[in-house]
């Protein structure tokens, strides 16, 4: 294994920051892809997978509807503005805004990052929450915009505001006009992705007719990753409306105000954006399992499997965005994106804590034209264990509700409630268990199972800001490893505060964070030890025997 990580130059960006600038010298392994065949890696299920097989980004951009013909082949093509065209865009943008807003805006001026590059994240979060809940309008000046790392807008092709991450859509509608002008200026084709880079900023456009999604980001994410997030937002909207209904609405009335139908869902979309900024599940395109003894998990899964009904497609038990168990109908696979949307829905609202929810939900990657009905409930009041039963029949509430009751009864009869409660008490494990002194954190994904594991983020990544920075480092490695034109298999990265290693094979992906104390040789040999540890612990960290009804 170690032999496959070749000696490469560590690279540090200016100011010690990670700038994924193109044209920088990069490290590439000349070696062939090694070792483990897919399906044999740690974490690979013994009886096949639970999920649709995915290739993260590529899969996200693949069509979810029948409309393949109209799709542009140039997915993810970035629009790298050179100096002259940047000037041209800037000029046109300025003219456009004068026209639309009665004032001139200099694109380059507006794109420039503010003085305060670092901000108090916790403060920012608090503020945005109160803004949403109190329905207060934020003052939408460019000044206020600058305070945020990333803005996300959704608008209809007719230029009507649909969603805005900060501030009310109302107040932003003139800005939306400018956005829209810019979209048509860039001639963003249907289903294409475009982006503009201006110093410190990236503006990424994703057009998914009848919607246009725009992000303005100061994060270090690549445009692929930003587009990836925008697509998640698009799928989130589909999960509430279905692709069919969305298209039908806009065919009937081009300038329909979609906010009417989305009222009350802003919280869900906000939550999704927050979650994507801190949960590596989205980056990995995989699900994380709650660590627990294999015997217990299998017993719980069996109880869940036995509480079946004709109309059920998926039974999912989860705890704080971690998978406890998943039972599916034979031949039906869940897509990780759909699972993430379900996780997000549940974590975005405390309203599921009471009673039993029964709600229509579209799983856009599974079938974007219709609704399933989801039965959502918590098993016990103070226990963070949520049961999600996905049914094909909206009339079947009482049958599905009875499945829940039967599941609970089985758990109780076999005395497993207590053991489950114990497992919930330790939802994370410490990286110190691995026994590698310089190892700070890692993410390991088994490609064939679509599951990943990762220890708790510990010191020195204590503050929200530091945690986010660590995730950004992983994002950076991930984007280098998956760069569509020059994918890298092995990366060793020496940063100012930590060393990182990425290793991507056809069977797994591994991202490791070390302290600065260790050498590269030590890091490479530690990977061996880490892989052995994961193998040893795999039946606790993964679901190796997924069940079907």
């Amino acid at each position, binding site marked *: 294994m170690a032999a496959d990580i070749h000696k490469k130059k560590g690279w540090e960006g200016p100011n010690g920051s990670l700038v994924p600038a193109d044209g920088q010298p990069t490290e590439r392994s000349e070696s062939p892809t090694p070792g483990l065949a897919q399906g044999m890696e740690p974490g690979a299920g013994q009886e096949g997978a639970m999920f649709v097989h995915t290739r993260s980004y590529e899969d996200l951009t693949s069509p979810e509807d029948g409309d393949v013909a109209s799709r542009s082949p140039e997915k993810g093509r970035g629009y790298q503005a050179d100096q002259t065209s940047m000037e041209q865009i800037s000029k046109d943008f300025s003219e456009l805004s004068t026209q639309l807003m009665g004032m001139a805006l200099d694109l380059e001026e507006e794109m420039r990052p503010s003085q305060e590059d670092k901000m108090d994240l916790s403060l920012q979060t608090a503020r945005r929450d109160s803004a*949403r809940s109190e329905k207060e309008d934020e003052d939408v000046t460019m000044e206020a915009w600058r305070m945020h790392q990333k803005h996300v807008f959704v608008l209809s092709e007719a230029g009507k505001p649909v969603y805005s991450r900060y501030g009310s859509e109302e107040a932003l509608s003139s800005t939306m006009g400018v956005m829209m002008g810019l979209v048509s200026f860039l001639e963003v084709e249907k289903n294409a992705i475009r982006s503009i880079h201006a110093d410190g900023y990236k503006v990424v456009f994703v057009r998914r007719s009848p919607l246009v999604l725009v992000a303005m980001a100061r994060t270090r994410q690549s445009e692929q990753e930003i587009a990836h997030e925008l697509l998640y937002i698009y799928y989130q909207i589909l999960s509430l409306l279905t692709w069919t209904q969305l298209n039908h609405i806009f065919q009937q009335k081009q300038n329909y105000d979609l906010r009417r139908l989305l009222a009350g869902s802003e919280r869900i979309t906000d939550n999704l954006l927050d979650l994507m900024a801190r949960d590596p599940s989205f980056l990995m395109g995989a699900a994380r399992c709650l660590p627990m003894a294999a015997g217990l998990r299998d017993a719980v899964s069996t109880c869940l499997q036995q509480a079946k009904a004709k109309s059920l497609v998926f039974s999912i038990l989860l705890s704080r965005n971690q998978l406890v168990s998943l039972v599916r109908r034979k031949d039906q696979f869940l897509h990780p994106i759909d699972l993430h949307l379900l996780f997000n829905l549940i974590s975005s609202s405390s309203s599921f804590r009471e009673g039993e929810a029964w709600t229509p939900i579209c799983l856009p990657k599974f079938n974007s034209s219709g609704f399933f009905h989801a039965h959502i409930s918590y098993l016990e009041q103070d226990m963070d264990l949520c049961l999600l039963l996905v049914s094909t029949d909206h009339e079947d509430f009482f049958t599905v509700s009875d499945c829940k009751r039967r599941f609970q009864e089985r758990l109780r009869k076999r005395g497993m409630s207590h053991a489950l409660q114990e497992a919930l008490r330790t939802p994370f494990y410490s990286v110190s268990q691995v026994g590698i002194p310089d190892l700070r954190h890692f993410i390991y994904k088994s490609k064939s199972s679509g599951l990943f594991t990762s220890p708790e983020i510990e010191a020195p990544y204590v503050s929200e800001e530091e945690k986010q920075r660590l995730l950004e480092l992983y994002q950076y490695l991930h984007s280098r490893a998956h760069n569509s034109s020059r994918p890298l298999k092995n990366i060793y990265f020496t940063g100012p505060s930590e060393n990182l290693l990425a290793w991507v094979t056809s069977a797994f992906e591994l991202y490791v964070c070390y302290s600065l104390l260790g050498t590269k040789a030590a890091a490479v040999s530690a990977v061996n030890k880490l892989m052995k540890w994961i193998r040893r612990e795999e039946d606790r960290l993964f679901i190796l025997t997924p069940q079907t009804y």
Partner: protein
Amino acid sequence: MSGQRVDAKVVMLGKEYVGKTSLVERYVHNRFLVGPYQNTIGAAFVAKVMSVGGRTVTLGIWDTAGSERYEAMSRIYYRGARAAIVCYDLTDSSSFERAKFWVTELQNFEENCRIYLCGTKSDLLEEDRKKRGIDFHDVQDYADEIKAELFETSSKTGQSVDQLFQKVAEDYVQLMAFQVMTEDEGVDLSQKHSTYFYSCCHH
């Protein structure tokens, strides 16, 4: 099987934010949750056992989401309902217009569903009389016209909440007694009895 039996289906309808969830919360758990507004997603079901004149009655309450997004699906939630509590916010006249919409919907599709009009957040009127959004007599006239009971409740103080649900349950028991009586006489005036079981089937 030990499934819980539901005697009468009750559905909460009304514009978003009028306080349907708060009303159910007050009635079932006798509490009022402060904190940011959490709109209901889809609908939530809760069963409540109560006693009416020595008899126990289980109400199966469907708390629906007010968002227009679910309007097209609302029938699955109110179909077969014995009672509908149509809520409007006493301080918001637009919510009363929305209540009228639901009444029409019920009259068209659920003839046998009793309608209870419920003006919510009455505590806000106690603070300031001028906050009342619709004239009380207009609402009363409308209620008479559609043969609905009218309540003004506050989930915050609990005012009239128990009375509302008690009335719903009493009316149900009375209707059942009447139906049994007419069935004994060999005349079946009732519609198909819609009793739900949590567990398996009966009949």
